């Protein structure tokens, strides 16, 4: 029965496609899948925004939104109806285009932002047998389309004719380009071990159990540090605190979308969040076993629940970080990428190689663990002590 539940969406798709003539099926199947993605993820986004606002509220010792429920009734739903007025407000607000703006580019930027993000969903496995396009080079495809987001950001910043927008766009380009390198390098270690760029293969490699514990990559030294690197880089890629420099509110107002309002702003917002979900989805696939269960006795839970559960959990960590940390400065951001993350990612590739060629016993744990820990501590200390940063002791006069 659980298998039925697991495959419910796949079966539903087959059932739906069954109504269509054989000739049209290759055309209709992706269309249904696309509409599924277009429905599910924006809905997920709207729920997450409420969760984010409520979560940050609680972290900041406030209530967060807790009033809006079902319209025209007194049911409040603890504020989870908030996304509806929020969305309506976004849609109905005046769309302001600066007089000096390059109107075509200004209009295109949010669209260019959203499309590659949506494209990247096509390769993500949301559950068992639930991948829209299971390319052999799925990982490459993901990174390739993900790179297009930078163009959109720059288009937005450039076309707005606003100094803050321009600064934000410059920052965004520099940041995204820099952090794509550790992002990809940390994924390379997985590719080395698995030997495939196909995302379903990567999941299959993690989908077996020893003593009831899954063989997720994050449970190995190289996988753990790879996951940490991937996680930090994905924070930067999705412009989240502490890497939210492109839209640093206290410095450059709203960065590249300072001059956007109404629906276009909503598209940017949506694109940013969907991009974040996609990159977390990829991280889950690479390191956290995708849709597999962590323990064998939990394997009966449907795979798509596992995927969305892990996605939500990581998003909560993102929200938690966002509510905690201040933001880095531009040069520190670059230092961190090039002087800390990049060497560590390279060492991680080395460690992954060692892991692959050493015999599977405790010694390789020791060697790999020591290498990684040593590299982490040394690089971290170098980063801090280069600038003589540290705790201070103060004296009192008299």
């Amino acid at each position, binding site marked *: 029965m659980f298998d039925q539940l697991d495959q419910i969406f796949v079966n539903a798709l087959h059932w739906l496609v069954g109504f269509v003539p054989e000739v049209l099926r290759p055309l209709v199947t992706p269309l249904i899948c696309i509409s599924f993605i277009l429905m599910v993820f924006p809905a997920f986004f709207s729920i997450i925004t409420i969760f984010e606002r409520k979560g940050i509220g*609680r972290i*900041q*010792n406030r209530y967060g939104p807790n009033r809006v429920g079902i319209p025209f009734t007194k049911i409040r739903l603890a504020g989870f109806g908030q996304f509806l007025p929020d969305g309506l407000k976004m849609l109905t607000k005046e769309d302001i285009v600066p007089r000096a703006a390059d109107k075509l580019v200004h209009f295109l930027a949010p669209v260019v932002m959203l499309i590659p993000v949506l494209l990247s969903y096509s390769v993500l496995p949301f559950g068992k047998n639930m991948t829209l396009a299971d390319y052999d080079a799925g990982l490459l495809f993901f990174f390739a389309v993900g790179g297009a987001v930078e163009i959109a950001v720059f288009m937005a910043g450039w076309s707005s004719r606003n100094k803050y927008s321009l600064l934000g766009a410059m920052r965004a380009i520099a940041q995204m380009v820099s952090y794509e390198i550790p992002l990809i390098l940390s994924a390379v270690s997985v590719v080395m071990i698995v030997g495939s760029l196909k995302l379903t293969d990567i999941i299959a490699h993690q989908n077996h159990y020893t003593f009831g514990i899954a063989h997720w990559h994050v449970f190995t030294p190289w996988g753990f540090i790879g996951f940490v690197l991937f996680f930090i880089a994905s924070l930067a890629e999705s412009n989240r605190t502490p890497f939210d420099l492109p839209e640093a509110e206290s410095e450059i107002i709203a960065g590249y979308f300072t001059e956007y309002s109404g629906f276009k702003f909503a598209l940017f917002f949506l694109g940013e969040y969907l991009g974040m979900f996609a990159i977390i989805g990829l991280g889950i696939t690479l390191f956290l076993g995708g849709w597999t269960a962590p323990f064998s006795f939990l394997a009966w839970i449907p795979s798509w629940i596992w995927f969305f559960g892990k996605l939500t959990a990581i998003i909560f960590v993102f929200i938690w970080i966002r509510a*905690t940390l201040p933001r880095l400065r531009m040069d520190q951001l670059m230092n961190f990428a090039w002087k*800390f993350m990049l060497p560590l990612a390279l060492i991680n590739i080395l460690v992954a190689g060692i892991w692959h060629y050493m015999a599977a016993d405790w010694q390789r744990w020791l060697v790999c663990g020591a290498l990684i820990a040593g590299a*982490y*501590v040394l690089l971290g200390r170098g980063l801090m002590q280069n600038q003589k940063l540290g705790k201070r002791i103060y004296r009192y006069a008299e």
Partner: protein
Amino acid sequence: MLGEQIIKGMAVTARNFFGSYFSKNRLTTVQYPEERLPQKGNTRQFPFLVYDGDDAEKGLRCVACQICEKECPPKCIYIVKSKDKKPDYKGQPQIYPLTFDIDISVCMSCQICVEVCPFESIKMNTEFELSTADRFGDLLLTKEKLAKPNSYYQKIHPADAAESDAVIAAEKAKAEAKAKAAAEAKVKADAEAKAKAAAAAAAAPIAPPPANPPTTT
């Protein structure tokens, strides 16, 4: 180690996240329209005029001395004095304000008017839900809107009201005693020499006169 303090900081926020569900000390927000905080000690909002008894027109303590108008820092009080006189709480004929307006859109709730008032007639209200759609009409409080009975004052600021009642009672008693003395003196004066009557009249001024004395007496 790099990241150690960041993890500590995240532990603090996590503690606050869970703490906000359990500890009132952390979650200090009040769900306002449904839930209200009790009024705190000397809370002040905007001034009102106190009257004794039931009739706002008759019992109004204000004698239109215009000290508050003069001292008001943003000059939001506007007083027009009456031409005639009517008896005040001491029974003496006093002028009264024909118009007493306070523009509470200008008022800055500083309580100076309350402090300088020698007649305990203007006090601070605690009413704060005064928002209105009509900035020009509803925020200009006239005498009728400002006048509140003494019982209201006793309700919102019991301690202060008791103090001010005591002052009023003392003044009243003093005035009565003086009236009595004056009456007695008059009786005596009928019998005795004129000089003594003059001495009684010399004791006339009641209560230390305000520095900016009322313009009419």
